[in-house]
């Protein structure tokens, strides 16, 4: 058995401020326990300190020295003091006596928790350290000070097993935070949320999971509520909530923080907020990141899903779009542009994988190569004179007609889900390629059977760029 006792270093004080400019944690003691659980499942709290039994997990980390190095060099959440020993009481005593290497017999009595109540009596007996206490007759000691002291001494010397209520990690992260002052501005909630995110990071690391969805809840000060301002966020009474989703499980708190600030910027608070709470809705086990050996693959910058989420959070989901093709003859129904965030989450995510992207083989002059590169969302009705259609001048027809007769099965039925809207009736069109005096090639069509009086109606539908 090998025990490590850790306690927050005195200089860290009660503030729980970590080194550097990392945000303060919400609950430092809890965060410390979660952090310790990464290294061994046997972690217990004794007064203000934590004891870790590491003999079971040493091998996993490559030996005791390697484990200790990881423990204290890979950034515990706060500055720590630590001591080791063969039993938990020994490790604790060395920690509290601030004598990490002291032999067991010389440890002062005040470092044994069970002896503290009897400290004045023991001192008067001339008993100052563990060695002297152990030298006293057991029977007399037990009669005078109770069995607890003898048992504790046995445990400290390792002749009696030690049992603790072991700490465990919660299945779901759910942390409350009482704000030190009422917050009236939604974007100022970010300061509190940052502390919750820092706490979340410790939990995620301990669980080796990444977050997919989390929610931030806030409680409004109902006495100062302004009923005029109640918006969709606050229909549930004096509570507000916001949900945050990412496409890939992440432990990247700066990314979550950016998303959070974008979303908070769109929230208005009807009353000051006193309490915040953060809860994970969905998490996923996180595989390690694989790095490439080749230098050219190690490019700097964000990943694509981070970019898409950030753009969608500020501009709106439907402002960042990727394309899907449909088998249809009407140009406006051949493609649909839909939110890229959804596409990357659904099955289309494979489309972004390198393998799928590499599969593209250009055909030898497909029919689509003759289509214009820009399409007008709605065909533009063109003015005509007796010689033909006009668009920035007289249009000269270069090629055509290409006859299109489709969509008769959707008579009167709007082109649902195509994102085009408008009046999609049966398309009876003759397409032409034309050129205007600026030498701009355009794609126009003449609607057949459009008017009783037989006059042609011309529309602009695409631009060759």
């Amino acid at each position, binding site marked *: 058995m090998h025990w490590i006792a850790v306690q927050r270093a005195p200089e860290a004080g009660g503030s729980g401020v970590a080194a550097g400019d990392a945000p303060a944690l919400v609950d430092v003691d809890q965060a410390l326990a979660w952090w310790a659980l990464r290294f061994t499942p046997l972690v217990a709290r004794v007064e203000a300190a934590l004891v870790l039994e590491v003999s079971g997990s040493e091998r996993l980390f490559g030996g005791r020295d390697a484990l200790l190095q990881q423990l204290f060099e890979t950034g515990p959440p706060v500055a720590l003091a630590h001591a080791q020993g063969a039993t938990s009481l020994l490790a604790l005593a060395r920690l509290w006596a601030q004598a990490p290497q002291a032999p067991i017999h010389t440890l002062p009595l005040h470092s044994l928790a069970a002896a503290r109540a009897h400290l004045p009596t023991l001192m008067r007996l001339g008993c100052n350290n563990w060695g002297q206490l152990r030298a006293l007759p057991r029977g007399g000691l037990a009669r005078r000070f109770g069995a607890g002291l003898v048992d504790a001494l046995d445990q400290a010397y390792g002749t009696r097993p030690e049992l603790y209520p072991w700490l465990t990690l919660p299945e779901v992260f759910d942390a409350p935070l009482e704000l030190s002052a009422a917050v009236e501005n939604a974007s100022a909630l970010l300061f509190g949320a940052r502390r919750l995110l820092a706490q979340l990071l410790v939990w995620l690391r301990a669980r080796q999971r990444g977050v997919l969805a989390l929610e931030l809840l806030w409680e409004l000060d109902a006495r100062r509520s302004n009923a005029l301002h109640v918006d969709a966020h606050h229909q549930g009474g004096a509570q507000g909530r916001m949900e945050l989703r990412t496409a890939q499980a992440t432990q990247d708190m700066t990314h979550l923080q950016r998303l959070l600030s974008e979303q908070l910027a769109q929230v208005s608070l009807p009353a000051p907020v006193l309490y915040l709470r953060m809860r994970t809705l969905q998490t996923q086990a996180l595989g390690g990141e694989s790095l490439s050996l080749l230098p050219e693959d190690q*490019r*700097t*910058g*964000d*990943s*694509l899903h*981070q*970019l*898409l989420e*950030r*753009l969608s959070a*500020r*501009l709106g989901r439907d*402002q*960042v*779009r*990727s*394309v899907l*093709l449909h088998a249809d003859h009407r*140009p406006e129904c*051949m*493609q649909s*542009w839909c939110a*890229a965030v959804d596409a990357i989450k659904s099955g*289309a995510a494979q*489309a*972004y994988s390198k393998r*799928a*992207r*590499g599969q*593209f083989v*250009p055909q030898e*002059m*497909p*029919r*689509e*190569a*003759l*289509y*214009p*590169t*820009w*399409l*007008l*969302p709605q065909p533009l009705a063109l003015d005509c004179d007796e010689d033909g259609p006009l668009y*920035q001048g007289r249009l*000269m027809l*270069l*090629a055509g007609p290409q006859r299109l007769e489709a969509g008769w099965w959707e008579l009167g039925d709007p082109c649902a889900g195509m994102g085009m809207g408008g009046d999609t009736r049966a398309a009876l069109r003759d397409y032409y*390629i034309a*050129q205007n*005096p*600026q*030498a*701009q*090639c355009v794609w126009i069509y003449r609607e057949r059977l459009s008017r009783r009086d037989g006059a042609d109606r011309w529309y602009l539908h*695409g*631009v*060759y*760029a």
Partner: protein
Amino acid sequence: MPALARTSADFLDAIHADVWHAYALSTAPLPVLATGDAALDAQLPGGGWPVGALTEILQPPGVHSEWRLLLPALARSGLGPVLLVGAPHLPFAPALAAQGLALQRMLWVTAQSAASRLWACEQALRCAEVNAVLAWLPQARSEQLRRLQMAASEYSKLLFVMRPQAAQDEASPAALRLHVQPHSATQVPASAAQGVDGLHIQVLKRRGPPLERPVQMQARSPGLSLLLEARHALDRSTARA
């Protein structure tokens, strides 16, 4: 004295390659991507579109030639996404895919305000996977473009900014500035029945001496010009018959 002159000429040639002589095209330290057109490549420093620098393309209002100019290079630019920010119309994906830009690579970003378009461009340039950003920024100011230029060079991305012809007199931080215009019908006899097919590319700014004559290029995509030529030949044969 002749000896001295020769020495100084030798000296000029011997100084570091990073020092660029104003009479020669810069042998760019920047990586480039060939444009797919040999005549244009010959006039661009390094022989192609600069990767990691801003390229500004100026066009007359209502006239579009940007895809003709950029598609051959974009098709070969890699496998990562190509972002279109503030495009003037709906991109027609089947046509773009047929000319080599894979469907999965197209990402279309629309934004109401000019500021959010600039923001979106900058974010896109910072993304590791993005290959190229095409932005339509008619109102962008010089210092805003400079910011994009810095981001493009830091993350070495292809960045093309399409601007109106009117911006020609404004200062620009772009490494390469082109004015692109198709031959208009007024410049050629109206008797050319099948229309004209030519693109004037005036190099306004490059790392090299100013270019006197515009570069000529086909204004239409290869497929389209093939179709129109066939059509024209057919018309002539029927007229003769």
